[in-house]
Every structure is written in structure tokens, then in C-alpha cells.
């Protein structure tokens, strides 16, 4: 009974808001009502949003794969100095909060960005020459930055399982380098390409923070449209959200089908390690080009972010933006000093981590117990718990808005609105499945004989848990806790719907500051982004320390 708490949590905070969205989309004063959907279909604006959402996702996916495909070949084929560092660096974007990434690209290519300021200084000009801000190009580049690492990992990982012999055989049969790509490499890679493409498409399809910060009214995805509709027309927003969720569900389903069908077909295993140093000048140039692209793509925005947070454009370095963070500015969009938002975020993240660790562990035990008793639908509950992960953050946050706005909502739920734990509750929806994912395999791996051995050695049930199970789960728990912490720190899409103005989190503060054109606000936003980035990077670095130590178990 006790272990069912995660299920109740899931029903109350995930299912109920989701059903509230469905209700709001189809019902008006208790009657079936399709006007919200009719509005969506009839208005050109919404049709354009749908097209834009698909279009930008498709373009982002295509660009990412075009860049990542040769890089994956380089990673899977060659040995070179700094490869490990480069791979680690390329993974970094994946764990960065969306607002930090958006801020980094504004710092690099925006109107106030490093490149524009530098060109103005050198040429010299009075206006910024590159009109990237609020353009599709900036959104696309940012998406490429985000998903490059995912594509690289999936493709080069799959590539390594392919036998070198096949390529050698093709070459011995007279295959030229171009035909080798077209007739051997690409066909062999097709399953991995499909899987990576589907995954990247899903991520770009649900892109919210990046598009909200870098786009405008014309450059807005469905998610941004939902956000903009909330204060204007709630039923339309609900219908949009439902449409978006339906499409997303379809995409996720397609992705899981593709990746299951093809990625697991046994590839030809290479007998020896296939990486080698580049052998001739051409290979060296090819290798260096892609190392340079990867380094610039990942490094430039982050360096620009750091540099611009410490400078006024092209001037000398100054800590002014960081000093500004300690003050409450007159007429500021934030009601508090920006530093307070760091404290808010850390507090929310810590509470989220506690919630997620407790709920995730309980869910893992509950699932393990049901499995042992051979209950029906062993995978169903698991899949249910994972659903918040495949639901867009905007839908999660919007669901709460709808519930709060509904007259039939129970009083205790409404009371959450002013509560400190509202944000952690929302973040936990996404964070606890992560903990579950980390803890459940570790729990299943504990052989029953270990518990029995501890019992026969005199350990009481509580001692068995503390001295045996907890140490064996600790690895997974720690990884899950770090994930929960970082997820909560960077969470933006759901929080923005329910956050109280006087208690902004770091990402919300960055968003508000970035939305203002004044250079002072811009500088503070960048400084806050650097701080958020540093906290996230430090949390993930702690995982790397752990990876090689300790016996046991979870490798990730």
C-alpha cells in the first residue's frame, strides 16, 4: 500500500491535469464542443505554427545529421589526441538548460552578441551588421548545437559495431570513396540514422525555450503558441496542447518502433578495434576539419557566453555584470535580486531531488514486488511512470494552469498554487522517472540469496536494508539524484506556467532579463547563465568521478 504512493502521485499530478486539458478542449459547460478545434483549423496563424513546427524540426534534423554523419565516421575510425576531451565536450550541450543555450547563442550571434560587436568595432559600424536575432537561422543553429552530440553518439556507436572488413572488401572490389559512402556506409547505417533522426525530430518538435527566446511571433512553434494563448483563450490553448501531445505521441511511437526493429539486429561484429591514426594527408585534413567543426560548434557559443558575461562588447574584461546581480534594480522585471533566484533554484532543486529519490525508489520497489508476484501487465506500470518523460514540459505546466483555473478543482489542489512545493512537485514529475530508471535495474540485480545470506548472518530487516540494499543501490540513487537535481535546476517549459512572480527560478530570471533589450539586463542574463552552467557542469562532473570508482554497478 505504502509503495503505491508514486502511483497516486502520478494519477493526481500527471493524469488529472492531462485529463483536465482534454476536458477543456472538448467540453464547454458540460456539453461536447468542438469550437476550439474549429478555431485551430480555420485560422491561418495556427496552420502556419503547425507547418513551422514541422519545418524547423525537419530542417534542424537534416542539418544536424549532415554535420554529425562525417564526424561520426571520424570518431569511429580514427585515433587522435584529445578525442576523449572532444567527445566529453560534445556531450555537454545535451545536459545544458535551454535558457543557457539560448543565452549563449545570443551572446555569440545576437544583436548584442560578440560577433556583431566585434564587426561593429572593426569595420567600424553604428548598427549591428548580422541580423540573426529572431531569425530561423539562429533557431536552427541552436538546435544543431543541442542535438549534434546525440547524433554523434548514436551514429558513431553503431558504426563501431560494423565490421571494417566490409569496407575493405568494397574497396578491394574497386569502390571509390564516394561510392563507399553511398553504397556501403549509408545503407549499413540506415537503422542508426533513422533512430537518430526520429529522436532529434522529437526534441526539435517540442523545442520551447530556445524558440521562445530566439524566435518571435512569426518564428513560433506550437508550444510557444500554447504559451502565448494561455492568458488570451484557455480552451484554444488546450486544444493546441492536445493536438501537440497527439502528434508527439505518434512521433515517439514511430521512434520506438524504428529503434526496436532495426538497432537490435545483430550487426557484424568487428574482431579487432577498428580505430587507427589517420594514414595520409587527405585523411588528416578530413579529420582536422571535423574536429574543428565540432570544437567551434560547441566551444564558440560557450566561450562567447563566458566572454560576454565579463565584458561590454569589445571592451576590457569587467566583473560588472556579476556585481549587478547582487542588487535589486529599479523597474526591474525581477521583484528580487538576481542572486536570490539562485537560492530559489537551489532550494527547489534540492526539494525536487528529495521527492524524486523517495518516489523513484518507492516506485522501483513497487515494480520489483509486482514482478516477483507475477502480476499482470508487468511493463504497463513501468511505461506509465515513464510517460511524463515523453510528454512535453509545456503540456505538464499547462495542465497545472488548467487545473488551477477550473472551478471543479478540489480546494487542497488549488492551495498548492501559493505553496513552495508547487515547483518541486512539477519538476518531480519529470525527475522521478529518471531516478526509477537508475534504481530499478540495480534493485533487480540484487540476488535474493544476498538478502537471505544477510538474514542468516543475523541482520534484521532494517539492517538488511541499510547495510546491504542501500549500499548496492547507492550508485544508482546517486546518479538519479544528480539527474533530478540538474533537471530541476534547468527546467523552464513547465515552470514558466506556474511560477509565482516573486519567486523566480534561475532559468525564469534569465528568460525575463533576456526578453529586455537593455545591455545591462543582457549582461546580467549572461552572468546568471554562466552560474547556472557552472552548477550543472559541476553536478555532472561529480558523476564522472564516480564512474570509475566503487564496486558495482551502474554504468551509463
Amino acid at each position, binding site marked *: 500500500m505504502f509503495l503505491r504512493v508514486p502511483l497516486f502521485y502520478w494519477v493526481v499530478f500527471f493524469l488529472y491535469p492531462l485529463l483536465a486539458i482534454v476536458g477543456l478542449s472538448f467540453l464547454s459547460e458540460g456539453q461536447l464542443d468542438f469550437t476550439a478545434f474549429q478555431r485551430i483549423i480555420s485560422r491561418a496563424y495556427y496552420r502556419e505554427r503547425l507547418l513551422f513546427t514541422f519545418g524547423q524540426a525537419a530542417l534542424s534534423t537534416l542539418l544536424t545529421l549532415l554535420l554529425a554523419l562525417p564526424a561520426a565516421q571520424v570518431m569511429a575510425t580514427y585515433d587522435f589526441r584529445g578525442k576523449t576531451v572532444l567527445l566529453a565536450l560534445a556531450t555537454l550541450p545535451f545536459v545544458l538548460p535551454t535558457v543557457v543555450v539560448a543565452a549563449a547563442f545570443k551572446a555569440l550571434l545576437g544583436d548584442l552578441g560578440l560577433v556583431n560587436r566585434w564587426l561593429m568595432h572593426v569595420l567600424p559600424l553604428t548598427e549591428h551588421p548580422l541580423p540573426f536575432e529572431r531569425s530561423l537561422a539562429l533557431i536552427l543553429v541552436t538546435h544543431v548545437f543541442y542535438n549534434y552530440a546525440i547524433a554523434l553518439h548514436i551514429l558513431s556507436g553503431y558504426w563501431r559495431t560494423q565490421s571494417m572488413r566490409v569496407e575493405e572488401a568494397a574497396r578491394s572490389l574497386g569502390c571509390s570513396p564516394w561510392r563507399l559512402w553511398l553504397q556501403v556506409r549509408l545503407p549499413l547505417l540506415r537503422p542508426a540514422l533513422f533512430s537518430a533522426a526520429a529522436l532529434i525530430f522529437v526534441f526539435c518538435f517540442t523545442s520551447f525555450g530556445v524558440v521562445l527566446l530566439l524566435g518571435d511571433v512569426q518564428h513560433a512553434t506550437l508550444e510557444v503558441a500554447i504559451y502565448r494563448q494561455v492568458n488570451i483563450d484557455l480552451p484554444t490553448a488546450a486544444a493546441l496542447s492536445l493536438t501537440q501531445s497527439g502528434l508527439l505521441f505518434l512521433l515517439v511511437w514511430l521512434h520506438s518502433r524504428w529503434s526496436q526493429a532495426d538497432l537490435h539486429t545483430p550487426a557484424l561484429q568487428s574482431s579487432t578495434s577498428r580505430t587507427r591514426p589517420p594514414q595520409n594527408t587527405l585523411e588528416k585534413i578530413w579529420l582536422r576539419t571535423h574536429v574543428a567543426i565540432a570544437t567551434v560548434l560547441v566551444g564558440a557559443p560557450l566561450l562567447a557566453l563566458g566572454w560576454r558575461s565579463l565584458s561590454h562588447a569589445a571592451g576590457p574584461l569587467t566583473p560588472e555584470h556579476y556585481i549587478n546581480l547582487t542588487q535589486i534594480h529599479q523597474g526591474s522585471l525581477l521583484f528580487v535580486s538576481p542572486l536570490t533566484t539562485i537560492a530559489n533554484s537551489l532550494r527547489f532543486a534540492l526539494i525536487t531531488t528529495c521527492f524524486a529519490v523517495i518516489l523513484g525508489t518507492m516506485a522501483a520497489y513497487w515494480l520489483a514486488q509486482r514482478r516477483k508476484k507475477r502480476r499482470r501487465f508487468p511493463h504497463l506500470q513501468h511505461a506509465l511512470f515513464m510517460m511524463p518523460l515523453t510528454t512535453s514540459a509545456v503540456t505538464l505546466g499547462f495542465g497545472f494552469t488548467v487545473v488551477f483555473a477550473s472551478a471543479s478543482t478540489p480546494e487542497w489542489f488549488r492551495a498548492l498554487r501559493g505553496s513552495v512545493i508547487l515547483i518541486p512537485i512539477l519538476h518531480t514529475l519529470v525527475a522521478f522517472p529518471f531516478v526509477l530508471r537508475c534504481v530499478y535495474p540495480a534493485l533487480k540485480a540484487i540476488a535474493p540469496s*544476498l538478502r537471505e*545470506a544477510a538474514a*542468516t548472518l543475523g541482520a534484521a530487516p532494517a539492517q538488511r536494508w541499510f547495510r546491504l540494499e542501500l549500499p548496492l543501490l547507492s550508485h544508482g540513487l546517486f546518479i538519479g539524484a544528480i539527474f533530478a537535481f540538474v533537471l530541476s535546476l534547468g527546467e523552464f517549459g513547465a515552470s514558466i506556467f506556474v511560477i509565482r512572480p516573486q519567486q523566480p527560478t534561475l532559468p525564469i530570471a534569465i528568460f525575463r532579463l533576456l526578453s529586455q533589450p537593455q545591455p545591462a539586463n543582457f549582461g546580467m542574463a549572461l552572468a546568471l547563465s554562466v552560474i547556472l552552467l557552472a552548477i550543472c557542469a559541476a553536478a555532472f562532473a561529480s558523476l564522472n568521478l564516480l564512474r570509475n570508482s566503487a564496486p558495482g554497478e551502474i554504468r551509463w
Partner: protein
Amino acid sequence: MNAQLPAPFFQASGIVLHYGETVALQGSECSLERGQILCLLGPSGCGKTSLLRVIAGLERPAAGQLTLQGQNLLPVPTHQRGIGLMFQDFALFPHLNVAENVRFGLKMADLTRREQEKRTAEALTQVGMSAFAKRDVAHLSGGEKQRVALARSLAPQPKLLLLDEPLGSLDANTREQLVVEIRHLIHAAGLAAIYVTHDRGEAFAIADQIAVMNAGKILQTDEPARLYRAPRSPFVARFFGQENILAVLTQEGDRARTELGTFKVRGQPNHLLIHTDGVETSLIPSNRAIAGLIRSSTYRGNHYELRSVHHDTVVKHALAAHHTRAPQVGETVYIRIDPACVIPLADDG
């Protein structure tokens, strides 16, 4: 049971255990004294591990009684029974090193740190693993793991030690060496132990008493030599490699008639066992010998194992190899049966 006798050190009686629909134990009984090693021997799936788990408190029997030093064990939870259990897969804790594994039970007993360290060191010395104290258990060989597991279960000085096929996962050479060591260690510690195995060679080497189990029941408990010499039922006889089991056709007084002749017996047995060791074999005819034709001949090193047909009955017997030529299939062979090796058998369970 005679009320005058003192109660045995450990006793299990009438143990019944179900796993869902399957009956794992149906009224198993066994007992042993302090300092004795009892071996539960039987084919796999006969319920010997289940009986061990009931004794350890890891399974709750549907019926039966368990007493240790006169105390009823059934209501006592596993961790308070003071019964050590050594698992077939060793169940070493992967997050602890060798010494920490051995120390686990001592910690649970709330001994002082000094006492814990002393007894851990002693236990490791006993099994010859002192040099491995700080080693990660994942890096041990099978034999080493087995020693650590033994040290771990010995260290808290349990009243009763249970060993569940402790050599099952080791290779034959390591097994032969360790079985002698285990017997020595258990006796040196003055422990009562129950040892589960399906290997009769292992059982002979280690046990003071062997209980042969089949289908959830203990069929016969005896000293190893008596069990081998005088099994009481066809199952036990066959389990120890005996094949010459004859049905009793008719019985008049103490004379029982079988296909192979009439033998003097005690009681009213349904079957007679002609023990292989009691069949004298010769290729030369002699007085009162029964002639037969050899059906198969297998060279076994110091003897030929023969199966020959006498009066429509197949008899298994041995011909010492050192003073004869190889017997041929189809050849005539002569056997004489030692009346002392004709053993009456009751029906199985």
C-alpha cells in the same frame, strides 16, 4: 520416540512445504547431534534445498516442527535463529571486500570492534585466506570465493551450519580437495552441520550420517557405510549404484524365492537386493555357480563391469581385471552369490 532419551540437539519432524500447487516437502524428518555432519543426499528437485531453507527460516512450512537445543525454532525469524547458511552461489556481498564480508555477521552480533577484528582474522586464517583480506570479492576464483563464504558463515559461530551444495559450482579437483578441508574445519569447530549435495562421493567423504531424500521425503538415514551396505528400499539401493533388485515371488517361512533362486531372509520383503559386492564372478565353471551369458562388458580400470543374463534376469557384477583376460560379450560367465550380501528391501516410501 522413547521419552527416556534426551532430545536430539537438532530435530526436524513432519515438515510439509508447498510452493503454490507443488509439494516440495511431505513430512520430512531428520535430527542430529552436536559435532555431527548430516548429509542430505538426493537427486535434484527432491526437496533437500527446500528443507534447508525451512530450517534457516527462509521458507515457512505448512506443518511440522523444528527444535534446536529443545527450543521451538518456527516462530523465530531467520536473523535470530543463530543458524549459518552457506549458499551454492556463495552470495558474497559485492560492495564489501573479503574481510568485510567475513565481518558482517560479527557486526550484526554487536561484538566489540576488537573482537570483530580478532574473529575475522581467525576465520580467514582457518580457511587460508588471510592474504586476501583486502581483496575485492569480484576478483576471487571459485575456490577462493567458497573459502570466504565458509569463513563468513563460520565466523559468528552458529549453533548449526547449513551448507547448500557448497561445492556445486567448482571443478572436480578443487571439489575433492575442499570437501576434506570442510569436514576438518566443521569438526574442529565442534559444529553441527547439515550438508546438501546430490553427489554420493561427496556425501561419503563428508558425512557422519547421510539422509537420502526423494520426492520431498527422507527415505533412510544412516552412517555412510551402513547405507551403502544395507539400503532399505529399491530407490536408496539404486541411488548408490545397485542394480540387482529381484522381486520376491513367493515366501515360505524365512525362505524367499526369486528368479535367481531361493534365499534366507528376515521379515517379509517385497524385493531382495543382491549387492554387487556379494557376487563372485568367474569365467570357469564351479560348484553351485549359476551360469549366464555376458550381455555387456565395460573396462573400469581395476575391474570389468559385467551385465549378464541368468535365468532371464540381468545381473550386474564385477570381474577383477588383474588376473584375467578381457571377457567377451556372448561368452558364458559363472556367478556365486554370498548369502550375507542378500539384503531385504521394503517398498519405496
